[in-house]
């Protein structure tokens, strides 16, 4: 998918370029160069840290910033309490970090820093990233489940009060649906973020191509495409929040399975 001269390649935005440390090796063959992807992850992490640090004044009567941070932690706390119950409180640090990291990553990818000549990058549009996050969440489910219930955790695959004959068929289905969870969790976020960015790039290429085809055709194609881009950008901001929420919500639902078997 090499970009031809004068054409916009909608996939180019997802390329990863090493920034420094080209020859850093973790082991033989494992290159860990600091890439633009890592840079945007670090930016998102620093922004999350700055956001939360701004709310650390710990005043009895909170200011605006503290109120914003407390409403975010309260939002995650409420979600976990609703899905898991009182035991959900101990997962707030993980779910909060996960939610904020994905949310800031999604939103940072939407910033029009391309106007400044920089390469905007959405690390959540890479399944290497979303996959690792999904596996992290899934590992927590497995660790909590087996630590809490031992081998009894396998009864998760047999819904309560299932007759034996049905359980024989239901258990394999439940097992497959359980094992698919990390993939669906990681792919959902990756696909949602990539699709939105590709769509925006495609529409932008319409505007550019239309502009090159003369004033009349340019206006006929370019203006509707541009209006659509504005609308889809608004939608993408919504999707950025929703996908981060869905990731955190599903993680908390899966942890609920492990915490409260059935």
């Amino acid at each position, binding site marked *: 998918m090499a970009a031809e001269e004068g054409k916009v390649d909608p996939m180019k935005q*997802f390329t990863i370029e090493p920034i420094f440390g080209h020859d850093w090796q973790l082991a033989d063959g494992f*290159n860990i160069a*600091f890439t633009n*992807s890592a840079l945007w*992850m670090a930016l998102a992490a620093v922004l999350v*840290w700055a956001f939360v640090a701004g709310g650390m004044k710990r005043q009895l009567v909170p200011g605006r910033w503290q109120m914003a941070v407390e409403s975010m932690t309260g939002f995650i*706390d409420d979600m976990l309490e609703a899905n898991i119950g009182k035991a959900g409180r101990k997962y707030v*640090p*993980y779910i909060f970090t996960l939610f904020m990291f994905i949310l800031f990553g999604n939103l940072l990818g939407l910033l029009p820093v391309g106007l400044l000549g920089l390469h905007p990058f959405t690390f959540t549009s890479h399944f290497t990233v979303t996959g690792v996050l999904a596996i992290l969440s899934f590992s927590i489910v497995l660790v909590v489940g087996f630590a809490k219930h031992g081998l009894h955790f396998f009864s998760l695959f047999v819904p309560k009060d299932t007759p034996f004959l049905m359980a024989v068929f239901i258990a394999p289905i439940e097992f497959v649906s359980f094992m698919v969870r990390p993939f669906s969790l990681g792919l959902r976020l*990756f696909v949602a973020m990539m699709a939105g960015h590709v769509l925006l790039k495609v529409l932008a290429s319409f505007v550019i191509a239309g502009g090159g085809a003369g004033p009349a055709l340019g206006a006929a194609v370019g203006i509707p495409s541009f209006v659509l881009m504005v609308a889809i950008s608004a939608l993408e901001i919504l999707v950025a929040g929703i996908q981060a929420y869905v990731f955190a919500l599903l993680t908390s639902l899966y942890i609920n399975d492990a915490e409260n078997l059935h």
Partner: protein
Amino acid sequence: MPQIEQLSEVFASQVFWLLVIFGLLFLVVGLGMVPKIMGTVDLRDQQISGDLAAAQAARDAADREEEAWRKRENENRTAAQGLIAEAKAAAAKASEAKLAAAQTRLDARLAEAEAGIDAARASAMAEIESVAADAARDIVARIAGAEVEAAAAEAAVKEVMAHG
């Protein structure tokens, strides 16, 4: 799709930096800051509920105080009314006694006066008898020209008067 094309060359870097950055974020923000923020929220909630409870307790105390005051007030009022009733009863008794004394005194004087009147009447009657006897003797002497003994005249008068 660069995600797949570059997979083999960037896979290790992606996973490594994600784990490092996300891990640091989890340690610093998730474990370091979030519990403090939630602690602040809990502290505030506790303070608010504590203040509300204190206000409720103060209000209850005030209500109890008022109730006790009202009870005391009512008791005082009843006591005062009792005192007034007692004083009234005592005054009524005293005036009754005085009236009774005055009545007895009056009765005594009345009886005395009646006795005086009776005595006067009796003496007047006696005088009338003697005058009548004298008059009867005079009338007899004038009309019949006979001298009647004073005692006989008196007896005759007495007899007439007794018959009415």
